[in-house]
């Protein structure tokens, strides 16, 4: 017998909600190796506005979930601190933190959410959510770094749903009274409509909302329960992108990558005070130098003066036509009702109000550096 040559690309992966997406009229595209809905029948603009006005349900099960398990919190936190600049040691039970995996140059290998389990019987457990496109590389990097007494357990059997918008709490508490007690960036295990879930108060839209991790075989029941509420509509990846852009949040592979440091990316706030002093993470020398002296380039928000969107890779020039940077995400903000972009510029142009030119289809268009977020965050802080 001979093996057939494997010349075909791997078939697209599907999430546990694939059939539901199809039945809801989802327009499916390939994203990070997964068949995902880019929009439903309402369309990107309508889905974006519905999420800001009421509540939207997103399938983000393509993202990588895993548990990091050690003998106690200190052991597990220190193991992950060897790769991340956040202060993870100080995480309290049920607390969540945004951080980055770094490479030896202090570039961003991936960005991720880290949650310390709130269950007293699970001291030493951190839950990780990483980007779909990076999960295999991330998990390999983490495993190669871990000490013997800390193990990475991948969780491909879990789905991840995000319920986002000003009515998310109203909707979720109809099925889970405990969710109301969660503050922004905290998490707990609770039942939603009788289904065991890990719920965190977080998201990627700038709105209040929840991310819900659940065993894949129960995900459709949960999704149907939430979609049964009159305030909730299914939302695709198109609106996910416009919502996060208005919220000023980074998209890996676009606004941050192996070449950008957290300091240049405007993420210095995620680097713990103790970590700034002690170092002990990859690329610490570069990052400490950038914290002290400032990076050469900085990520900034940009508002074009006209109506034409400036897309990713648009050149940014100063008023004397010198190249000073590049757009890393750009488009149209449905809630802003105007074009918007983010990108990197030389630090001497990285101040609010700085006048720059965006070269769109060969024509320089005036734009201004502007503070982010473009649309104020509405998180439910403690």
């Amino acid at each position, binding site marked *: 017998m001979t093996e057939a040559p494997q010349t075909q690309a791997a078939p697209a992966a599907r999430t546990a909600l694939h059939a539901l997406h199809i039945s809801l009229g989802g327009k499916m595209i390939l994203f990070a190796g997964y068949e995902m809905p880019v929009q439903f029948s309402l369309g*990107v*603009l309508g889905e974006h506005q519905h999420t800001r006005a009421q509540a939207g349900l997103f399938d983000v099960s393509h993202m990588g979930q895993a548990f990091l398990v050690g003998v106690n919190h200190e052991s597990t936190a220190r193991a992950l601190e060897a790769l991340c600049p956040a202060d993870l040691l100080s995480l309290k039970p049920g607390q969540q933190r945004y951080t980055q995996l770094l490479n030896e140059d202090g570039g961003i290998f991936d960005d991720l959410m880290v949650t310390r389990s709130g269950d007293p019987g699970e001291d030493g457990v951190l839950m990780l959510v990483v980007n779909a496109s990076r999960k295999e590389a991330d998990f390999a990097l983490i495993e190669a770094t871990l000490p013997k007494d800390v193990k990475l357990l991948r969780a491909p059997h879990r789905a991840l749903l995000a319920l986002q918008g000003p009515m998310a709490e109203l909707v979720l508490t109809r099925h889970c009274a405990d969710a109301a007690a969660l503050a922004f960036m905290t998490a707990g295990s609770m039942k939603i409509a009788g289904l065991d879930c890990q719920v965190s108060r977080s998201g990627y839209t700038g709105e209040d909302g929840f991310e819900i991790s659940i065993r894949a075989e129960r995900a459709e029941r949960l999704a149907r329960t939430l979609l049964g509420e009159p305030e909730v509509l299914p939302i695709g990846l198109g609106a996910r992108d416009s919502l996060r852009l208005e919220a000023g949040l980074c998209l890996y592979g676009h606004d941050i990558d192996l070449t950008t440091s957290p300091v240049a990316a405007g993420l210095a706030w995620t680097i713990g005070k103790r970590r700034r002093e002690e170092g002990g993470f990859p690329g610490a020398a570069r990052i400490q130098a950038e914290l002290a002296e400032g990076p050469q380039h900085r990520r900034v928000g940009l508002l074009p003066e006209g109506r*034409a969107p400036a897309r990713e890779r648009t050149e940014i020039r100063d008023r004397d036509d010198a190249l000073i940077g590049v757009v890393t995400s750009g*488009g149209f903000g449905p809630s802003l009702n105007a*074009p918007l972009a983010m990108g990197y510029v030389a630090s001497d142009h990285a101040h609010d109000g700085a006048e720059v030119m965006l070269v769109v289809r060969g024509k320089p268009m005036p734009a201004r550096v502007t503070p982010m977020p473009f649309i104020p965050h509405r998180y439910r802080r403690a």
Partner: protein
Amino acid sequence: MANIRYTRDHEYIAIDGEAGTVGITDHAQKALGDIVYVELPAVGAIVARAEQAAVVESVKAASDVFAPVSGEVIAINSALEKQPGAVNEDPLGNGWFYRLQLSNPSELEGLMDEAAYAAYLETLD
């Protein structure tokens, strides 16, 4: 019934005499999704058949719009600057892009009529 001709790239031209009104078809607007910006040629611009004459942008991406035939731009739909969504709502009516004075009307023979375009759409997806 207006005499409308179509390209394989989903532009249309509604012909009246030696001039025509150009836009994108209902199929095109559906495929693009919500349109947020339209870049139109200048009045007086000379456009050549199958060359880029306009740009249409949805929330997600920018797409070139090609001239269905050659000619001179004699009017543009300035209302699209404030109301780009008209392209979604009424692509063959209020969502028109520009009017063209044809320089070579025989180029129209290379375009599809209503029936041929409908049959062409059947072959897609």
